[in-house]
């Protein structure tokens, strides 16, 4: 026994040839792995499908309900962005999808397998982000356009609605799809930082839903701060008549992107420093 070990020790590391051809870990390979992970979970498709259906159904319902112009109608319900209100629901589903894509790895222990395969860790963050962004954008941007077109077709039967070429409409329609994608990315980053699924969901809903309302408790000062929250920054380019005070659409997008960037930075730092 000891003789055998002495012989092997002098032979040095990597003395054995592997029977299996394997390649170095690269970002494209990590991406492929994350894509397999995403598509092989039924819950991914269920949540994405629910967000798509929700956007579509809500747009049709809103269109039908506002088909006739009556006195005392809310201007918001007649604006070009009115039929895309489904994004309120969409941001919950897409956010939860973003959270779960990351946090479920921690709750199931999968993260240990993931890091055993990609021990440098950071490529996993980028790969997950890219897969999530691509899939969500590919679903939510087209469904925003389709929901808009179908709902305006319904309205068009009764009164004059909006077309994509009207001023600001492209911005609102594409912006809605982009907002949902970006807010989902923020959900994913919360997943990396908080790790536990319930904790991450609560943090996400708190940031997107509760904090803006909380801001209103502090009057106009609160509202001025609240316009920099992700949901309010998003509203500046997804809504035709965002609540005042609000940022200019371009500034709103910059603020939302800053939230995404901050999320990525904190998630990466947490990933690098903490035990898995």
């Amino acid at each position, binding site marked *: 026994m000891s003789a*055998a070990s002495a012989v092997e020790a002098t032979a040095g590391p990597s003395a054995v040839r592997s029977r299996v051809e394997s390649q170095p870990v690269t970002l494209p390979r990590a991406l492929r*792995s994350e894509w397999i992970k995403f598509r092989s979970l039924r819950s991914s498709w269920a949540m994405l499908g629910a967000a798509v259906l929700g956007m579509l159904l809500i747009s049709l319902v809103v269109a039908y309900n506002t088909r006739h112009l009556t006195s005392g109608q809310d201007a918001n319900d007649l604006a070009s962005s009115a039929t895309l209100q489904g994004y309120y629901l969409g941001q919950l589903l897409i956010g939860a999808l973003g959270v779960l894509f990351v946090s479920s790895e921690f709750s199931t222990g999968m993260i240990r397998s993931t890091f055993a395969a990609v*021990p440098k860790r950071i490529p996993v963050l980028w790969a997950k982000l890219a897969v999530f962004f691509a899939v969500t954008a590919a679903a939510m941007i087209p469904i925003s356009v389709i929901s808009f077109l179908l709902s305006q077709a319904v309205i068009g039967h009764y009164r004059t609605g909006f077309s994509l070429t009207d001023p600001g409409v492209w911005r609102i329609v594409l912006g809605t799809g982009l907002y949902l994608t970006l807010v989902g990315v923020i959900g994913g980053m919360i997943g990396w930082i908080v790790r536990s699924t319930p904790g991450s969901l609560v943090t996400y809903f708190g940031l997107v839903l509760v904090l803006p309302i909380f801001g209103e408790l502090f009057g106009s000062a609160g509202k001025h701060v609240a316009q920099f929250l992700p949901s309010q920054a998003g509203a500046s380019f997804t809504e035709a008549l965002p609540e005042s005070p609000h940022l200019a659409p371009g500034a709103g997008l910059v603020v939302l992107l800053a939230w995404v960037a901050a999320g990525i930075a904190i998630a990466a730092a947490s990933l690098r420093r903490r035990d898995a």
Partner: protein
Amino acid sequence: MIQADSLTKRYGDKLAVDGLTFTVEPGIVTGFLGPNGAGKSTTMRMILGLDTPTSGTVTVNGKPFAEHLRPLAEVGALLEARAVHTGRSARNHLLAMAATAGIGVKRVDEVIGMVGLADVAGRRAGAFSLGMGQRLGIASALLADPQTLILDEPVNGLDPDGVRWIRNLLKGLAEEGRTVFLSSHLMSEMAVTADHVILVGQGRLLRDQSMADFIAEASSDVVRVRSPQAGQLADLLLASGVTVRNIAEQTLEVEGLTSDQIGVTAAGASITLLELSTQTASLEDAYMALTEDSIDYRSTLENTKDAA
């Protein structure tokens, strides 16, 4: 080869691993032993870079694990806690792992066949029994045919067939010159699988030696003698350095003399011997003798029985 140098991990005020220095050599199976809470799993997690050491270093084939370009080909790991998403099928889990190393479907199906999961590979891993989950973990460890295997309780939940399979597999891989590092609480299994033993207790290294030396040093052999004149024989045998215990009617256990010496003494006094046999100490005996003082989580059943 795994080399740990003064490896230390502190969680809050508990020192889980306390200055461990050891080398796991290729070409043999090394058993990693110690009571619950001795720091075995933490050590394995540090080898894989899942936990960062508070101080000290650990390398695999000369480099920290995370610095290897082909991590799956370097180390195949099975960690104690399940490391699989419960909603994903076994095959998709392995495909996702394999994709990071550019390993294709063919090899994935091959390891699924090797571990005997071919019939259930399409089922959710969450529905797997303990043994099936363990087989899946072994499959992912073997995926890239790694240089080094780190297995935490691999036979846990396996059927006897599976236990024998993993034993032969690990011995075979070690013979090819791979490094096999294995923890288990099943002493009988460890005794027939491992060539070398690293024993830890309360995070500290207690022993690092060959299986044979480990057993021989930790407990001495005992000779069992049965004789109608046991009392007379006991008086004759008692000398300095010799312990004689009367363990049953007509039966003695003698420590400090060989069976030859006892036989000759008995013959000289015309004492009839009905049985004379050397009781070789087992790995379990050696383990118990060495870890007595370092057990964190001892069963208190005996105490409660006394109280009742």
